[in-house]
């Protein structure tokens, strides 16, 4: 992460005890913290359930997640069968106008399909019994980036990549890297299918090291060239959207890569990279930045890197240790990350106990700066402070305003049953949504709102004014600074 806008919490690290497991039982505050980090937040019922669990059991239940098949998206489109009907010759024979019409039709179906998959994924984040699996898929998507609709990457291809990320959610990082390297969407996104013996294309070889596994300054330009040679030979068939290896297009000469010499192929390159201590440090930093706090201390990174190597890059035991650790539950890690737009949107529905995310989330996410399957570039989304500008904050607020209304009070698992007294009602809102992370003056404002200070006539909270006041108060509670932070 070489972006600006990432900040380490103040205070100092207790390096000796950082990764030791925390003893005892969770409470509402630490349960909500765990659920925000290992997922997208909890609804009040989930938080209450986790709050009664010992730390180890709570983490285990997130790590040993059930195999959740879930429903597939409604519309996973691929133009392959349509293109196959024409065939390569038929496509060449089309006039300009027909060609244009054909691809315009394809593009329209693709846009619809992408929206369907985006909405499907958001709802899966909201409702999956395996939230950590979805969180890992989202983090992988921002890390091993590919974007849809460009370079012949169809919705079906990006969906398959998404499923690959889900399958490796807590799997082996080396194996995931080997597989994602040969994933059709990735091969197209970074020009891997234009990389042939004698005319290497270095795009993937470079990003593999710079952005995916090692970071800049940990390899030479010559390593990029040699790696590109090892990756030659992959092709793509757009009539069935499969990637395949063509031995005669592969450079099977001897390569010298990161100090080793041999007739390497792509798998060998990944294996050599993962044998570098820097690779473990790189992923350790990524995990800490994603789950604990930004800009972690080098000694903490080294400890997690050792753990990764000890477990041969298996994520399940490493994530289990990280989510139980003292440093994870430390005050320095608490609310120390900025919610991404996706975390904000899903988290808002979680907090309100709403059953479903509607299509209005899609344009809203665009305006907040995060469109699923469209990372801004191969480096992924710059997070941390970069998420927050006046315009994106306004969009976040306006999204809350749109989803908090009479109908959502009805659908909410808990908002329709607040106490009818102002103080307990305000207290419950702040407890359920923010785990108490509100300033006294803010709670005072909330009480004023519930007590009718904003309406023409001051009147006690009653069935008559309940919807209007409680929706206003829920909006106000989620507008408080803590709600922007994970």
């Amino acid at each position, binding site marked *: 992460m070489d972006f600006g806008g990432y900040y380490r919490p103040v205070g100092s690290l207790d390096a000796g005890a950082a990764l030791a497991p925390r003893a005892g039982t969770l409470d509402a505050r630490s349960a909500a913290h765990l659920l925000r980090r290992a997922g997208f937040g909890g609804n009040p019922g989930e938080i209450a359930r986790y709050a009664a669990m010992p730390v180890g059991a709570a983490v285990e239940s997130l790590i040993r997640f059930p195999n959740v098949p879930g429903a597939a998206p409604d519309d996973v489109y691929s133009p392959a069968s349509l293109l196959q009907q024409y065939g390569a010759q038929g496509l060449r024979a089309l006039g300009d106008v027909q060609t244009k019409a054909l691809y315009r039709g394809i593009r329209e179906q693709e846009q619809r399909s992408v929206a369907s998959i985006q909405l499907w994924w958001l709802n899966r984040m909201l409702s999956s019994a395996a939230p950590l699996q979805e969180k890992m898929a989202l983090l992988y998507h921002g890390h091993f980036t590919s974007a849809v609709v460009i370079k012949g990457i169809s919705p079906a291809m990006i969906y398959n990549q998404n499923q690959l990320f889900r399958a490796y959610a807590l799997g082996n990082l080396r194996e995931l890297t080997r597989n994602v390297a040969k994933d059709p969407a990735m091969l197209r996104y970074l020009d891997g299918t234009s990389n042939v013996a004698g005319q290497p294309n270095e795009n993937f070889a470079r990003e593999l090291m710079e952005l995916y596994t090692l970071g800049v300054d940990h390899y030479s330009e010559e390593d990029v060239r040699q790696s590109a040679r090892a990756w030659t030979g992959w092709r793509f068939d757009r009539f069935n959207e499969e990637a395949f290896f063509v031995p005669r297009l592969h450079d099977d000469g001897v390569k010298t890569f990161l100090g080793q010499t041999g007739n390497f192929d792509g798998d060998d390159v990944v294996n050599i990279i993962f044998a570098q201590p820097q690779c473990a440090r790189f992923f350790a930093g990524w995990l800490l930045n994603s789950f604990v706090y930004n800009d972690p201390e080098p000694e903490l990174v080294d400890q997690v890197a050792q753990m990764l190597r000890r477990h041969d890059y298996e994520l399940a035991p490493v994530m289990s240790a990280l989510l139980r650790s003292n440093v994870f539950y430390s005050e320095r890690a*608490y*609310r120390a990350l900025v919610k991404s737009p996706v975390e904000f949107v899903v988290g808002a529905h979680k907090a309100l106990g709403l059953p479903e995310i509607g299509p209005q989330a899609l344009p809203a996410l665009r305006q907040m700066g995060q469109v699923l399957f469209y990372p801004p570039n191969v480096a992924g989304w710059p997070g941390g402070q970069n998420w927050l500008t006046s315009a994106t904050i306004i969009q976040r*607020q306006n999204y809350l305003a749109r989803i908090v209304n009479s109908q959502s009070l009805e659908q909410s698992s808990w908002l329709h049953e607040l106490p009818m007294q102002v103080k307990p009602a305000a207290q419950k809102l702040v407890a359920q949504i923010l785990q108490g992370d509100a300033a006294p003056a803010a709670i005072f404002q909330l009480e004023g709102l519930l007590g009718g200070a904003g309406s023409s006539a001051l009147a006690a909270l009653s069935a008559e004014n309940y919807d209007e006041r409680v929706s206003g108060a829920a909006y106000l509670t989620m507008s408080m600074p803590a709600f922007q932070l994970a």
Partner: protein
Amino acid sequence: MKRLNFLMGTVSGLTVVANGEHVFARALAATPLPGLPGSGDRCLVLINLQGGNDGLNCVVPHGMPQYYQVRPKIAVPRGDVLAIDGTLGLNPQMRAFKAMYDKGQVAIVQGVGYPDPDHSHFRSTEIWQTAAPARYEHTGWLGRYFDEAGLPENDLFKGVAVSQVLPEVLVSNHTDIPSIPNAGNYGMLSDRNAFERRAFAQTAQDRALPFSSPYLAHVMEIEDHAQRSSEELPRLIAGYKTDAAYPATELGRSLALAAQIVGSNLGTKVLYVAHGSFDTHINQKAVQDRLLGEFSDALAAFYQDLAAHGNDRRVLTLTFSEFGRRIEENAGAGTDHGEASPLFLIGGGVKGGLYGTLPDLANTNMGNLRFTTDFRSVYATVLERWLGRPSTTVLAGSFPTLPLLA
């Protein structure tokens, strides 16, 4: 100064944020380097001609027979070109723009591009916006300008993107730039009552919180900006009146808002506007002619409006496009992604005329025009000679400036 006091006056009653540790670091980083005198009220308007504007049919080399040889279907007929000289002329749809050129308000820089050009819209747009052809950079060149310029924290509109989403060129590490596609839509949803809005403003600023976070000061600062800027904007620009006849196009509406913001003296240094799409792979003429006509008419109205308010010398407009297009037309009477192309600098402050060198139509880079002026030279010119800032850190290198500003 007057502007600043005015804004401060409007927020009495709100707690002005005592900023946290990052703001302190920011203040240190933002110590201004010596600027040029007189750059104080200057403004840059950046127009992104999205999709890759075909330079050869925009600034037409009508004196070169080869142009007509490679473009039998789409070349602009010699008699239609708005001739600048015996070699070059403007697209016939750009009549109003040609009149501005004739008055010396337009500088044309020819053959602008960068080494090892990328032909992806996506990546090349990013390169133009980040000014980083050889590395991935998440801040834009104007975002870095803001980070270094040390402009008053309280100027909420020091940069404005007249667009839905903040373009990469204005992404910075430390400066909050609002994107305002139209003034009516920029704001908290109005179905919340005034009490809630006030309560939001206050709860957002209360620091007595039972936790700490490295981002808390930033969240509060941005929430304060969002609240104030969205409440203030309509009132701040309400006094501006214009008689200029803007065309009823998106670009016309965007530039009308730009002129209104400039004329309302909010301390705005940079505005961003987009126009397009110029991605003319098929039947180029109809699309590009329409877009160039819209550009020409909107620009003319914009500068009329600016001039009527005495702002035309304060505002420099710079265009860019992610690439030019292939020299040879394709079978569909369009052109594919190319490389170098001309760009425009417009305003009362420019020395009008032609700059740079027209690329050779014969000695090409696989059918594409080789660039003769590095785009970062144009940026360096704007930074140093218009905005009064050093350019080497923003551009991560030293690029010669062009003598095109008066």
